[in-house]
């Protein structure tokens, strides 16, 4: 086999694939954050915990109810989304008139409660979740081995991301949503129930996180802290992309995952921090973010 700049191609493409997978999760999570932020003006710090909850619902469905991966892919977003709607109705909606920082603090507190609760019940170590039978195995592409499940994650996340983009940017419902982001009072005056739309938007963003959590369960282990460190990286992704654009969030998510994967090949020591460093560089050159409108 040939070598590229001293790196065996299996390692290179392997890391590229891992990067693409990570990027898929960055994209799905930062997309949810951007949708929530657009309408609620709140940075949802609980997003990581809700992603973790999605993975746990999948795990519990399998161990207690015998409900497999495909069922969990539907059940987890509904359950966790309902939990999100409950949060929005009971707590978050009281904060809309206050400084945005209180929304951050509140959701941070909820994240601590949720993560502490799961750690109390299940400990800090990861729980294994088997890949569903239909998606085991893989393809030999000649230059690398492609596990079916990983291919599925990339394809499914692309479909989900672009589906969300399509709904928001190309449908009537999305038009209402974008209008309410610009001027909620005016949209309400046209007879649209904006508070309900806000609640459902939050529920949808949270459901997206839970969906990502179920997809992640077979790849990463299911553990109470799986979302805590991820959410900080996703914050950096959001700062780099700028939250003004849905497509921006998707593209930045995938691109940064790939960059992170490549860093693992060429300079592994920096793989944990490369996204934060890129964020610092973007801040010096284009403070509003790559796809951001003015701050």
């Amino acid at each position, binding site marked *: 086999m040939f070598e590229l700049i001293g790196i065996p191609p299996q390692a290179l493409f392997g890391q590229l694939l891992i990067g693409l997978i990570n990027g898929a999760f960055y994209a799905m999570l930062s997309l949810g954050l951007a949708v929530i932020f657009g309408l609620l003006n709140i*940075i949802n710090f609980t997003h990581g915990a809700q992603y973790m909850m999605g993975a746990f619902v999948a795990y519990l469905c399998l161990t207690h109810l015998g409900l497999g991966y495909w069922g969990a892919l539907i059940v987890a977003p509904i359950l966790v989304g309902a939990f999100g709607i409950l949060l929005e109705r009971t*707590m978050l909606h*009281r*904060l809309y*008139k*206050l*400084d*945005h*920082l*209180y*929304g*951050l*603090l*509140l959701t*941070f*507190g*909820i*994240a*601590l*409660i*949720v*993560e*502490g*609760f799961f*750690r*109390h019940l299940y400990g800090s170590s990861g729980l294994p979740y088997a890949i569903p039978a239909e998606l085991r195995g893989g393809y030999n592409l000649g230059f690398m081995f492609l596990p079916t499940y990983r291919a599925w994650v990339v394809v499914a996340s692309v479909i989900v991301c672009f589906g969300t983009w399509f709904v928001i940017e190309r449908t009537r419902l999305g038009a209402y949503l974008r209008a309410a982001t610009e001027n909620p009072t005016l949209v309400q005056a046209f007879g649209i129930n904006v508070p309900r739309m806000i609640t459902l938007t939050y529920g949808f963003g949270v459901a997206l996180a839970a969906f990502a959590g179920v997809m992640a369960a077979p790849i990463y282990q299911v553990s109470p802290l799986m979302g805590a460190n991820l959410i*900080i*990286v996703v*914050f*950096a992704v*959001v*700062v780099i992309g700028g939250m003004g654009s849905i497509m921006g969030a998707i593209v930045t998510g995938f691109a940064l995952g790939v960059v992170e994967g490549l860093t693992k090949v060429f300079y592994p*020591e920096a793989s*944990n*921090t490369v*996204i*934060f*460093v890129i*964020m*610092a560089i973007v*801040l*010096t050159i284009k*403070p509003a973010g790559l796809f951001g409108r003015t*701050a």
Partner: protein
Amino acid sequence: MDRATRITFLAMLVVLAVAPFVLYPIFLMKVLCFALFACAFNLLVGYVGLLSFGHAAFFGSAGYVTAYTVKMWGLPPELGILLGAATGAGLGLVIGWLAIRRQGIYFAMITLALSQIVFFYALQAPWTGGEDGIQSVPRGHLFGLIDLHDPMAMYFTVAAIFVLGFLFVYRVIHSPFGQVLKAIRENEPRAISLGYETDRYKLLAFVLSATLAGLAGGTKSLVFQLASLTDVQWQMSGEVVLMTLVGGLGTIFGPIVGAAVIVTMQNYLAEFGSWVTIIQGFIFVVCVLTFRRGIVGEIIGRFGPKGAAPTGGGH
């Protein structure tokens, strides 16, 4: 200082002098280090309106530098602590310079993300000892004279550092510079239109806050003779936010009360493990929903002169 503040300050000095004879000095020193850390944090969030979610970077890295220089280079404790504070200042300059480009929640996310670089550096660098941290740091002799291994000597040194730090914060807040900071908090575009270069003010406030956080972190590493990853983790950034919030954002004594409350709680709940996190999260939620002025803010609101309490909500 106005009369109420002066009386409270004197009462605090009395408590500081008597406390080590009643309570366990190590516990008190822990409270004081965190109180100074929270005061430093409050300078930024309470008076400039910038919520940093990465202050653990300054607190923790200063701890490493103090511990390393005192243990490996044999520096005297006062120099070690000063180097710790200088580390906080240097990091504060870099992180602040990047973070003040954005406002509000972006500022919080950026400081959080940048502090993760410091965390991963501390995790991977050879001199920080990885998961073990830097252990059994000698406390040494202050100015070559006072043996800090004596708990009382260490306690009064920490108390002196705390009081100096506190007075410094008070001085900054009540200086013309502090007035400009408050103007930026209330209405930044107006401050700009009055001709203030608000970015410079924000950066200086950030550096001052980071320096004091470093002072607190360096001192803590001598008290516990240990520098570890706990102090650079993002959870620590969250804790200092919680302390300040509980005590009262934008109040002078609030962070001190908040630090005392949270450290006491952690002490009593230490054996319950993960419940500490759950209860801290719960306090966060309760504070944000119903108790935004914090303990000291509520006291000022109930008993103080009208209009003296911070609004706790804003625009």
